[in-house]
């Protein structure tokens, strides 16, 4: 796998939100607006790149028995950093993201990439993987946030969308609308990437197959 591929696979082909269905909690909760989506996405990208880098460097030093606590400590360090930075420089975003900023620590995308990729690969691919996955996450959140903000509030990135005044549907900014928009976007991404549902469940076509230690036959049995 070359470096370019490592970077681009996170954008669409293995998009963490639309394909792997990871990080659903922030995806549904903070995407009531496009700006929140970008903020959450870029914060996560920062943490993802940094944690991938450090975990990759320490991959031989971390004992296998305590790897998860070690990963969490590393991730939490960077989350605290980004939290202070947002609090200091973009307080409005800090307030609107609320507890979900701290919850980046337990975001399964970050832990997933640490476990699946950074702990098994060299430094440059790990950084690229983190950047690709992070930007894919940002893209997904931005799309979700845009759709929900335009239809739900009649604005986009805070600007009024012409023609939407008085025609907004508040369902879109409600949690139910979040699930609805997510489902439709997943369907669109499936159609765009021309993925067909597998005839038989198996490891072929599973985006997590490389990192998965269990055999599908065993799991199903």
């Amino acid at each position, binding site marked *: 796998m070359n470096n370019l591929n490592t970077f681009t696979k996170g954008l669409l082909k293995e998009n963490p939100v639309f394909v792997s269905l990871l990080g659903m909690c922030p995806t549904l909760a903070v995407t009531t607006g496009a700006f929140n989506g970008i903020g959450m996405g870029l914060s996560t990208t920062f943490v993802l790149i940094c944690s991938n880098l450090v975990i990759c460097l320490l991959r031989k030093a971390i004992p296998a028995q305590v790897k998860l606590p070690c990963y969490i400590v590393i991730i939490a360090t960077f989350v605290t950093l980004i939290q202070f930075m947002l609090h200091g420089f973009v307080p409005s975003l800090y307030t609107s993201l609320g507890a979900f900023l701290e919850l980046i620590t337990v975001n399964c995308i970050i832990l997933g990439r640490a476990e699946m990729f950074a702990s098994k690969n060299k430094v440059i691919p790990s950084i690229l993987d983190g950047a690709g996955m992070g930007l894919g996450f940002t893209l997904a959140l931005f799309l979700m946030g845009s759709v929900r903000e335009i239809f739900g509030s009649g604005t986009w990135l805070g600007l009024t969308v012409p023609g939407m005044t008085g*025609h907004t*549907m*508040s369902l*879109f900014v409600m949690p139910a609308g979040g699930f609805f928009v997510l489902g439709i976007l997943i369907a669109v991404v499936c159609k765009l990437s021309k993925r067909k549902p597998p005839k038989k469940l198996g490891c072929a076509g599973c985006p997590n197959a490389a990192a998965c230690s269990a055999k599908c036959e065993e799991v199903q049995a």
Partner: protein
Amino acid sequence: MGLLTVSPSPHIRSAMTTQKIMLMVVLALVPAIISGTIFFGPRALFLVVFCAVVSMFTELVCRALMKKEGTISDGSAMLTGVLLALNLPVTLPLWQAAIGCIFAIAVVKQLFGGLGCNFANPAITGRIFLLLSVGSDMTAWVKPFYYLDAPALGLFETTGSQALDGLTGATPLASGDAGLMELFIGNVGGSIGETSALAILIGGIFLIAAKLIHPSTPAAYLGSLAALTFVQVLVTGGEMTEVLYALLSGGVMLGAFFMATDYVTTPITVKGKIIFGIGCGILTFVIREFASMPEGCSFSILLMNLLTPYIDKFTRTTPVGAKKEKKEAAK
């Protein structure tokens, strides 16, 4: 030659087809449509026709896009449109009504595989979608006969309730000041088809007499709601007319006879239907009394729709001749 044809069972077919059932239900809704037109003016009738047309058109487009055979002739899309329109206030802008119909048909019904595969009642879900999306327009109730002494709302009016400032009021369910006779006839504010208990009863009794619906669901629904209200009256010490008031106001009548009896989304057995009806009654009561919404009929039916597969599982009947040991062994 017909006698010699070899075909798999069933060999005896009922003359009752899906198309006939759907048309009969639409026929049973005609009294409610008439009462809605009398009380809320010609726009009510127009809205009903509009919703039916949009629903059928959506069905046509969906089936064509999915490259499946057209199902528009079975009448189910028309029924969904009519039922949804009867659940809307007469002032609702047309684009909102159209979105409700498109959501009901495209998302709730066709995305799940069309008639027979939908997990929830399309009309109910369409109504809830609109209620959550455009809540203020969905809860603007004009007074009956508003169109006589005020300039009637144009058929294609898009501004909705804002055009009729001062003519709208709370539903009798929220205000609690309507007379019982008014409620029975339907001379109160509300959705197009829900106000007149009399018109709904005529349609409901027609359906029961034609054996299209089983009386157990409406009986269990209305019965449990009445029983709970009765207990509440006993505890709080109100008047006994409140029980009747609870049954006649809001959308319970329409829901009990036409929504909670949908074939696809309600249990099959009579026992299951009774459980379904009681569940709807309890949920409606709880939502009306303790939740922030004035009416809980549509939410209660949707919630029970979701429970229907489990009710069906618990009330499964044993086939004729099946041995009891086998049933236990299968468990």
